[in-house]
C-alpha cells in the first residue's frame, strides 16, 4: 500500500529543485520545495537515473527518515534507509524489504530534467497538511 496524498493542498512549483550537476552519483539529497523548514522529500541519483521520494516513512504518519541532512542511504549506499527504526527500501521501487513497514512502499515524487535542471513533475503536497480552520 502507498500513502495517499491530499491533492487539494497541492502546489505547482515554479522553481527547479537544483541543477543535475549538484546531485552526486550514488548519494541522496533532501529538499524542502515549499520552504516548510524541513526536507519533505529527497532524491537519490544513480548514474543518469534520479529517484524522488517523500521524506515520510510508511511506518508512522509523517515519520522523517534521514539521520542527518541529506543522509537517506544505508552504509553500503545500495538501499534507502529509514533511520527511525532501520527499515530498508529498494532504491528503484521504494518498496520496503525489511523493517516495520515491510510490504509497504515510499511515496514517489516524479522528477523531470529540463535544460540540466531537476524539476518536480506536477503538483506538490505540503509535508504537513494545513489544519482546517
Amino acid at each position, binding site marked *: 500500500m502507498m500513502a495517499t496524498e491530499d491533492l487539494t493542498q497541492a502546489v505547482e512549483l515554479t522553481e527547479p529543485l537544483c541543477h543535475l550537476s549538484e546531485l552526486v552519483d550514488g548519494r541522496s539529497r533532501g529538499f524542502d520545495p515549499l520552504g516548510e523548514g524541513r526536507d519533505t522529500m529527497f532524491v537519490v541519483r544513480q548514474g543518469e537515473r534520479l529517484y524522488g521520494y517523500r521524506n515520510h516513512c510508511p511506518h508512522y504518519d509523517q515519520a522523517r527518515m534521514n539521520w542527518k541532512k541529506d543522509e537517506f542511504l544505508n552504509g553500503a549506499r545500495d538501499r534507502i534507509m529509514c533511520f527511525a527504526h532501520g*527499515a530498508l527500501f529498494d532504491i528503484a521501487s521504494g518498496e520496503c524489504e525489511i523493517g516495520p513497514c515491510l510490504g509497504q512502499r515510499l511515496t514517489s515524487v516524479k522528477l523531470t530534467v529540463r535544460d540540466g535542471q531537476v524539476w518536480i513533475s506536477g503538483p506538490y503536497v505540503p509535508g504537513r497538511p494545513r489544519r482546517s480552520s
Partner: protein
Amino acid sequence: MRIIGPDELVFGVDDVAACREFLVDYGLMEKAFSDEGGRFEALDGSAFTIRKRDDASLPAPLPTANMLRQTIWGVEDQATLDAIEAELSKDRAVEKLADGTLTTRDDANFEIAFRITRRVALDLPAELINSPGAKPGRAPNVIGANDEVEARPRTLSHVVYFVPDMDKMANFYVERLGFVVTDKFTNTGPFLRPQANNDHHVLFMIQTPEYMQGLEHVAFHMQGPTELMLAGSRMVQKGYQSFWGPGRHKFGSNWFWYFNSPLGTHIEYDADMDLHDGDWVERETPMTKDAAQMFLFENVEKWVPGGPPPKK
C-alpha cells in the same frame, strides 16, 4: 533482584563512522574507537558499544532491521547476579563470562546480559530555577542562560522494545527478575522499573508484529529541561533529524526530544522523570496523542523581533 537499569547497549551497525559522528555530537564521550567499532559513555559510565554488523564476536542478530545486539543490565551486587543465575538457569542456558557477566536470552529472544554495574555514582547539580514563592534556586548574580556550557547525557535512562507479545515479555521481567509495572498503555505495553531504581521506567515495550521486533528507542537522562533543549537544538543546528519533540510525556512526566540515528533507532534526550516506590498504583490508558504527551513543540530557526525604525 537488585537490578538498577541498562548499563550498556551493544549494537552491530552498518556504518561505524556515521555512528561515531552521531554519538559524539549527541554528547557521549568516546572511550575507544577504531574502524571496527567503539565505546561511547555517558557521565556515569553507562555506555553504547558499536561494532560492525558482521563482527563475529557479537551475539546473533534478530531476523529484522534491528541493530541492537545485546542489552546489558547493571545490578547492585554479586548476590543479585547469583540470584539471577539461579532463577534463569531453571529453563534456559545462562553463560557466565570470565568477568562474571551472565548472558542469556529473554522470553522475546532478545540477547540480555547482567553484570555488577559499572555506573559511577554521580554528584552533580540539578537544574536550578528561580520561582516566585519558593526559595531561589540560583543565588543573586548567578546566570541561568549560558550557551557556552556542555550538555552531556548523565546516564542511560531507558530502553523501549518492539515485541511480538507484550504480556509474555512483561511477565518475564516481572515474574523472573522482579520488575514492577508502573503504568500501562492498553494493548500497547507496560512501563517497568526494576527494584533498585525508582525511575518511572527503565523498560517499556510496544506490541508489534514479529517482523518489527527490535529496539524502538533508547534514552539518556539530561540534567533538566534546559539542558535537554540546549542539547537538542545543537543537534538540529548540526543537521541531525529531529523525530519527535521537544515535549513532555504524561506517563513518567519526562521531557523528551527524539532523534533519528545511524544506529537504526531513535535516541532520546530525556529529563525530569517521575520517581515511584511500592506505594504507587499503576495507571492504564489507551495510547492516544493526548496520553503520549502533555505538550509538543518543534524547533524553528532563531529569530528576533525587529526591523527598520517606524516611518515618521
